[in-house]
Protein backbone atom coordinates (compact mmCIF):
# COMPACT_ATOMS: atom_id res chain seq x y z
CA UNK A 1 0.00 0.00 0.00
CA UNK A 2 1.55 3.33 -1.01
CA UNK A 3 2.12 5.99 1.57
CA UNK A 4 0.79 9.49 1.12
CA UNK A 5 2.84 12.69 1.29
CA UNK A 6 2.46 12.84 5.04
CA UNK A 7 3.27 9.18 5.47
CA UNK A 8 -0.26 7.99 6.10
CA UNK A 9 -1.44 4.86 4.36
CA UNK A 10 -3.60 5.55 1.33
CA UNK A 11 -6.38 3.21 0.34
CA UNK A 12 -7.43 2.59 -3.24
CA UNK A 13 -10.89 4.08 -3.63
CA UNK A 14 -13.44 1.51 -4.74
CA UNK A 15 -15.86 2.90 -7.28
CA UNK A 16 -18.62 1.52 -9.41
CA UNK A 17 -17.40 0.47 -12.86
CA UNK A 18 -19.83 0.17 -15.75
CA UNK A 19 -19.69 -2.55 -18.39
CA UNK A 20 -18.04 -0.16 -20.83
CA UNK A 21 -15.29 0.63 -18.35
CA UNK A 22 -16.50 4.02 -17.20
CA UNK A 23 -15.94 4.71 -13.52
CA UNK A 24 -18.46 6.51 -11.35
CA UNK A 25 -15.82 8.56 -9.60
CA UNK A 26 -17.54 11.91 -9.46
CA UNK A 27 -20.98 13.36 -8.96
CA UNK A 28 -21.09 14.29 -12.64
CA UNK A 29 -20.31 10.73 -13.72
CA UNK A 30 -23.02 9.39 -11.41
CA UNK A 31 -25.62 11.83 -12.73
CA UNK A 32 -24.78 10.94 -16.34
CA UNK A 33 -25.19 7.24 -15.54
CA UNK A 34 -28.47 7.83 -13.72
CA UNK A 35 -29.83 9.56 -16.82
CA UNK A 36 -28.90 6.48 -18.86
CA UNK A 37 -30.59 4.21 -16.32
CA UNK A 38 -33.75 6.34 -16.49
CA UNK A 39 -33.72 6.10 -20.29
CA UNK A 40 -33.44 2.32 -20.10
CA UNK A 41 -36.30 2.13 -17.60
CA UNK A 42 -38.44 4.18 -19.97
CA UNK A 43 -37.53 1.91 -22.88
CA UNK A 44 -38.37 -1.16 -20.81
CA UNK A 45 -41.70 0.31 -19.79
CA UNK A 46 -42.56 1.10 -23.41
CA UNK A 47 -41.54 -2.32 -24.72
CA UNK A 48 -44.29 -4.85 -25.39
CA UNK A 49 -44.63 -7.51 -22.72
CA UNK A 50 -42.49 -10.49 -23.61
CA UNK A 51 -40.32 -8.52 -26.02
Amino acid at each position, binding site marked *: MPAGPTGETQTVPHV*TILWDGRRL*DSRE*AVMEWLAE*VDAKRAAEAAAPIGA
Partner: protein
Amino acid sequence: MPDLAGPAHDLGRLIEVLDRHGVEYLMVGGVAAIGYGAKRPTEDADCVVRRERANLDRLADALQELNARLRVGGMTDAEARLLPVQIDGTALDMAGMSTWMTDAGPFDVLAGLEAADGQPSGGRDHRLSSGAW
Protein backbone atom coordinates in the same frame (compact mmCIF):
# COMPACT_ATOMS: atom_id res chain seq x y z
CA MET B 1 -9.26 14.95 3.02
CA PRO B 2 -12.95 14.17 3.37
CA ASP B 3 -14.11 11.55 5.81
CA LEU B 4 -15.13 8.71 3.50
CA ALA B 5 -15.84 6.25 6.28
CA GLY B 6 -19.25 4.74 6.81
CA PRO B 7 -20.67 2.13 9.12
CA ALA B 8 -18.45 -0.71 10.26
CA HIS B 9 -18.85 -4.23 8.96
CA ASP B 10 -21.79 -6.28 10.11
CA LEU B 11 -21.29 -9.32 7.94
CA GLY B 12 -23.89 -11.34 9.79
CA ARG B 13 -26.58 -8.80 9.05
CA LEU B 14 -25.50 -8.47 5.42
CA ILE B 15 -25.75 -12.21 4.84
CA GLU B 16 -29.02 -12.46 6.74
CA VAL B 17 -30.63 -9.81 4.55
CA LEU B 18 -29.30 -11.28 1.30
CA ASP B 19 -30.54 -14.74 2.28
CA ARG B 20 -33.93 -13.54 3.43
CA HIS B 21 -34.48 -11.84 0.07
CA GLY B 22 -33.46 -15.01 -1.74
CA VAL B 23 -30.50 -13.45 -3.54
CA GLU B 24 -28.29 -15.94 -5.36
CA TYR B 25 -24.74 -14.89 -4.60
CA LEU B 26 -21.30 -15.99 -3.62
CA MET B 27 -19.13 -14.15 -1.14
CA VAL B 28 -15.63 -13.77 -2.57
CA GLY B 29 -12.40 -11.99 -1.76
CA GLY B 30 -11.23 -11.27 1.74
CA VAL B 31 -14.53 -12.08 3.41
CA ALA B 32 -14.62 -15.49 1.75
CA ALA B 33 -11.02 -16.10 2.84
CA ILE B 34 -11.98 -15.30 6.41
CA GLY B 35 -14.86 -17.73 6.07
CA TYR B 36 -12.30 -20.39 5.22
CA GLY B 37 -10.34 -19.51 8.34
CA ALA B 38 -7.85 -16.97 7.05
CA LYS B 39 -6.70 -14.32 9.50
CA ARG B 40 -6.60 -11.16 7.46
CA PRO B 41 -8.20 -7.74 7.53
CA THR B 42 -10.66 -6.77 4.85
CA GLU B 43 -12.21 -3.43 4.13
CA ASP B 44 -15.40 -4.52 2.44
CA ALA B 45 -17.53 -7.50 1.55
CA ASP B 46 -17.35 -8.60 -2.08
CA CYS B 47 -19.87 -10.84 -3.74
CA VAL B 48 -20.70 -12.19 -7.17
CA VAL B 49 -24.37 -12.36 -8.07
CA ARG B 50 -26.19 -14.17 -10.83
CA ARG B 51 -26.92 -11.59 -13.53
CA GLU B 52 -30.51 -12.57 -14.05
CA ARG B 53 -33.20 -9.95 -13.79
CA ALA B 54 -35.28 -11.52 -11.03
CA ASN B 55 -32.13 -12.04 -8.96
CA LEU B 56 -31.04 -8.45 -9.49
CA ASP B 57 -34.50 -7.30 -8.41
CA ARG B 58 -34.15 -9.34 -5.21
CA LEU B 59 -30.69 -7.85 -4.67
CA ALA B 60 -32.15 -4.37 -5.16
CA ASP B 61 -34.72 -5.09 -2.45
CA ALA B 62 -31.96 -6.26 -0.11
CA LEU B 63 -29.85 -3.16 -0.80
CA GLN B 64 -32.83 -0.91 -0.15
CA GLU B 65 -33.42 -2.60 3.20
CA LEU B 66 -29.77 -1.93 4.04
CA ASN B 67 -30.15 1.75 3.08
CA ALA B 68 -27.48 1.33 0.42
CA ARG B 69 -25.91 4.33 -1.25
CA LEU B 70 -23.22 4.42 -3.88
CA ARG B 71 -19.63 4.84 -2.81
CA VAL B 72 -18.25 7.54 -5.06
CA GLY B 73 -14.65 8.63 -5.07
CA GLY B 74 -14.16 12.01 -3.46
CA MET B 75 -17.63 12.09 -1.94
CA THR B 76 -18.38 11.52 1.71
CA ASP B 77 -20.98 8.98 2.76
CA ALA B 78 -23.23 11.86 3.79
CA GLU B 79 -22.89 13.45 0.34
CA ALA B 80 -23.50 10.13 -1.42
CA ARG B 81 -26.75 9.69 0.52
CA LEU B 82 -28.08 12.76 -1.28
CA LEU B 83 -27.57 11.33 -4.77
CA PRO B 84 -30.92 10.51 -6.44
CA VAL B 85 -30.05 6.84 -6.93
CA GLN B 86 -33.04 4.54 -7.42
CA ILE B 87 -31.86 1.01 -6.73
CA ASP B 88 -33.59 -1.54 -8.92
CA GLY B 89 -32.76 -4.39 -11.26
CA THR B 90 -32.24 -2.02 -14.18
CA ALA B 91 -29.62 0.02 -12.37
CA LEU B 92 -27.82 -3.06 -11.07
CA ASP B 93 -27.88 -4.65 -14.52
CA MET B 94 -26.20 -1.57 -16.02
CA ALA B 95 -23.32 -1.60 -13.54
CA GLY B 96 -20.81 -4.38 -14.01
CA MET B 97 -19.29 -3.79 -10.60
CA SER B 98 -21.11 -1.60 -8.15
CA THR B 99 -19.77 -0.36 -4.85
CA TRP B 100 -22.11 0.45 -2.01
CA MET B 101 -22.06 1.68 1.53
CA THR B 102 -24.77 0.03 3.57
CA ASP B 103 -25.90 0.05 7.16
CA ALA B 104 -23.99 -3.26 7.38
CA GLY B 105 -20.79 -1.72 6.02
CA PRO B 106 -19.11 -1.47 2.61
CA PHE B 107 -20.41 -3.95 0.05
CA ASP B 108 -19.19 -4.55 -3.51
CA VAL B 109 -21.26 -6.40 -6.10
CA LEU B 110 -19.91 -8.06 -9.21
CA ALA B 111 -22.60 -9.07 -11.67
CA GLY B 112 -22.29 -11.65 -14.39
CA LEU B 113 -18.66 -12.60 -14.45
CA GLU B 114 -17.68 -14.10 -17.77
CA ALA B 115 -15.88 -17.39 -17.90
CA ALA B 116 -12.83 -17.99 -20.10
CA ASP B 117 -15.07 -19.22 -22.90
CA GLY B 118 -16.98 -15.96 -22.89
CA GLN B 119 -20.13 -17.48 -21.43
CA PRO B 120 -21.72 -15.60 -18.57
CA SER B 121 -21.14 -17.52 -15.38
CA GLY B 122 -24.77 -17.05 -14.38
CA GLY B 123 -25.89 -19.13 -17.35
CA ARG B 124 -23.57 -22.03 -16.72
CA ASP B 125 -24.15 -25.18 -14.81
CA HIS B 126 -22.07 -24.22 -11.78
CA ARG B 127 -24.86 -22.40 -10.07
CA LEU B 128 -24.45 -19.56 -7.67
CA SER B 129 -26.09 -20.49 -4.45
CA SER B 130 -27.75 -18.61 -1.73
CA GLY B 131 -25.47 -18.51 1.30
CA ALA B 132 -21.93 -17.38 1.84
CA TRP B 133 -19.92 -20.59 2.30
